[in-house]
């Protein structure tokens, strides 16, 4: 059975279902319960935006509030994973990775390789990403490229509630460390979500719109911008864009991307991260190398600018790639005839 569910509640449901299924799943993070040691309500917050609200009532001490010591508790999650647990740690905002990155970069990601294949570290790190929340430079970054760069990590960034639930369930069941990126401006977004548990395999992109003229590749929030652009292009120019939602950035589904570009001959990659060494360059470069012969036009990249995220709403609204910018990039890939 399915019903409309928000992205936020889909995550909550995935956590609930997996905690029921597997006693080795535990949750830790700052105020994921909220109210620990305090005189008032125990389950006062359920995370800073309420994503884990209610889980304490169901699973009690398997949720642990942590002190403001990201290195210690993210590392504890990694260590517990290496000892057979399946911890899901919340790093409130992915921007905070700067105070605890070593436990991800040099510990979780590398154990298996450094130890000759003898370690398994099934840790999930959930974190908010993305701009648009008026949260300014230190609470709005995408940072997916940095994690995607790291061998040993898997990186997930869903665009909708259905995928969020299925990908989070897969993340928890997966035996490798997973960085699970939740775009904070999608939390309220609702789609049909089945009540039961289901896992969406990693490395399988979702073709969210079929089209023959151009391939638009994206992930996370900007998938919706890409869809808006595609609709406008169809309406205004008769251009039919195929829109691919990568869903997981590592592993990445090269096959689906390449196949689409082989059909369309045109590529636009949309990435909310900064331009340099980004998911945009990653996809554009790989396609250029692997499907050069199929390309009829220069691949285009639409990214956030090479600037920190500004606070002022008017500036921030210019920061995230817009549907207009995406449509503009598409038009740069098509001959004038087609764009007419």
């Amino acid at each position: 059975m399915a019903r409309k569910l928000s992205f936020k509640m889909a995550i909550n449901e995935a956590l609930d279902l997996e905690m029921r299924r597997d006693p080795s799943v535990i949750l830790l993070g700052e105020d994921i319960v909220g109210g620990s040691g305090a005189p008032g309500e125990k389950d006062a917050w359920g995370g800073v935006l309420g994503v884990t609200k209610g889980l304490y009532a169901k699973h009690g001490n398997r949720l642990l509030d942590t002190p403001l010591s990201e290195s210690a508790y993210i590392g504890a999650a990694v260590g517990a994973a290496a000892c057979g647990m399946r911890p899901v740690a919340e790093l409130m905002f992915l921007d905070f990775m700067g105070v605890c990155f070593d436990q991800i970069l040099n510990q979780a990601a590398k154990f298996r390789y450094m130890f000759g294949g003898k370690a398994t570290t099934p840790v999930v790190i959930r974190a908010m990403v993305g701009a648009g929340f008026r949260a300014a430079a230190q609470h709005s970054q995408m940072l997916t490229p940095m994690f995607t760069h790291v061998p040993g990590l898997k990186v997930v960034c869903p665009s909708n509630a259905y995928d969020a639930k299925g990908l989070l369930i897969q993340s928890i069941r997966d035996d490798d460390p997973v960085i699970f990126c939740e775009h904070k401006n999608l939390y309220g977004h609702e789609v049909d979500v089945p009540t039961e548990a289901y896992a969406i395999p990693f490395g399988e992109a979702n073709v969210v719109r079929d089209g023959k003229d151009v391939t638009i590749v994206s992930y996370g929030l900007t998938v919706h911008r890409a869809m808006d652009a595609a609709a406008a292009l169809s309406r205004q120019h008769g251009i039919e864009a195929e829109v691919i939602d990568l869903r997981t950035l590592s592993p990445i589904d090269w096959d689906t991307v390449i196949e689409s570009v082989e059909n369309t001959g045109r590529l636009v990659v949309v990435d909310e991260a900064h331009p340099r060494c980004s998911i945009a360059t990653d996809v554009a470069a790989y396609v250029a190398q692997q499907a050069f012969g199929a390309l009829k036009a220069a691949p285009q990249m639409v990214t956030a600018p090479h600037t920190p995220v500004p606070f002022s709403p008017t500036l921030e609204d210019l920061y995230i790639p817009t549907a207009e910018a995406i449509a503009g990039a598409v038009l740069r890939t098509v001959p004038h005839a087609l764009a007419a």
Partner: protein
Amino acid sequence: MPEPTPSALSNNPIPLPKDQLLEAYRTMRTIRDFEERLHVEFAKGDIPGFVHLYAGEEACATGVMMHLTDIDRIASTHRGHGHCIAKGVDVGEMMAEIYGKETGSCRGKGGSMHIADLSKGMMGANGILGAGAPLICGAGLAAKFRGDGGVGITFFGDGAANQGTVLESMNLAAIWNLPVIFVIENNGYAEATSVTYATAVDSYVDRATGFGLPAVSVDGTDFFAVHKAAGDLIAKARGGGGPAVLECKMSRFFGHFEGDSQTYKAKGENEFNRANRDCLKIFADRVTAAGVVSEAEIALLDREVASLIDDAVTSAKAAPLPAARDLLSDVYVSY
């Protein structure tokens, strides 16, 4: 914590000259009004983003900052408005910044969590907990190399006191004998989590001892206690006597941020704090009871501050938004 009673206070002579008392009151009142007004304006939906209010903690920022001049540096927190005001950052520019306007302290690019004014020695509010501690070690190092007698103060909460950056910095400041004071603003909560849950040790003085630092813990609702303790530690640091820790215990009157339901607090906790742990009220009662400052003088300051804040809000609302081209500027000095 013993509550100072008016009668006990009035027996104490007031340890500061009148002009400083008026200055202290004006600063604390400015912070309070700034925050109370933001609370109201935020509720209207006019103010974007995360806003953390300092109301209830004014005596800490004020008692510390009165010992500083522009050559002294502070590194602040997500809850930074009070530190900014006490350090002399222009209130109108601050308000404009919080509204995301071109005329703001940071031209609208920083917002509430990133207000800075380096010309005033204010190195920035900070959205990363504990990040100010290493930075202030750098400020102290710079002061030491230049021999300019400047000191650096970093503020952080009871929660951020468990950040590795803060702990490392205490050790670093100690071994380099930096002119740096670590001010722990202990308001009992980090977001919704109690300090008794998150911090293993009962006293931050013990923690400081573990880093070879002298430490003092004071009632942060008592301006005079803060002012005295901070003054002693700052004078010592300025004279080359090295770093120290100052803990101020007090309460925040609002939620963690605007929008917080505060259900983790005890029933009536905010009301109790407003009634009994209001540093402004405690201060005003004491100086008026001692007859050093009159109620009329207090009332006059209140009116002056109220109109200052009114003007700040009016100007901020009327101020222009940043231009589109500002999106791309100010990333580098040259590139």
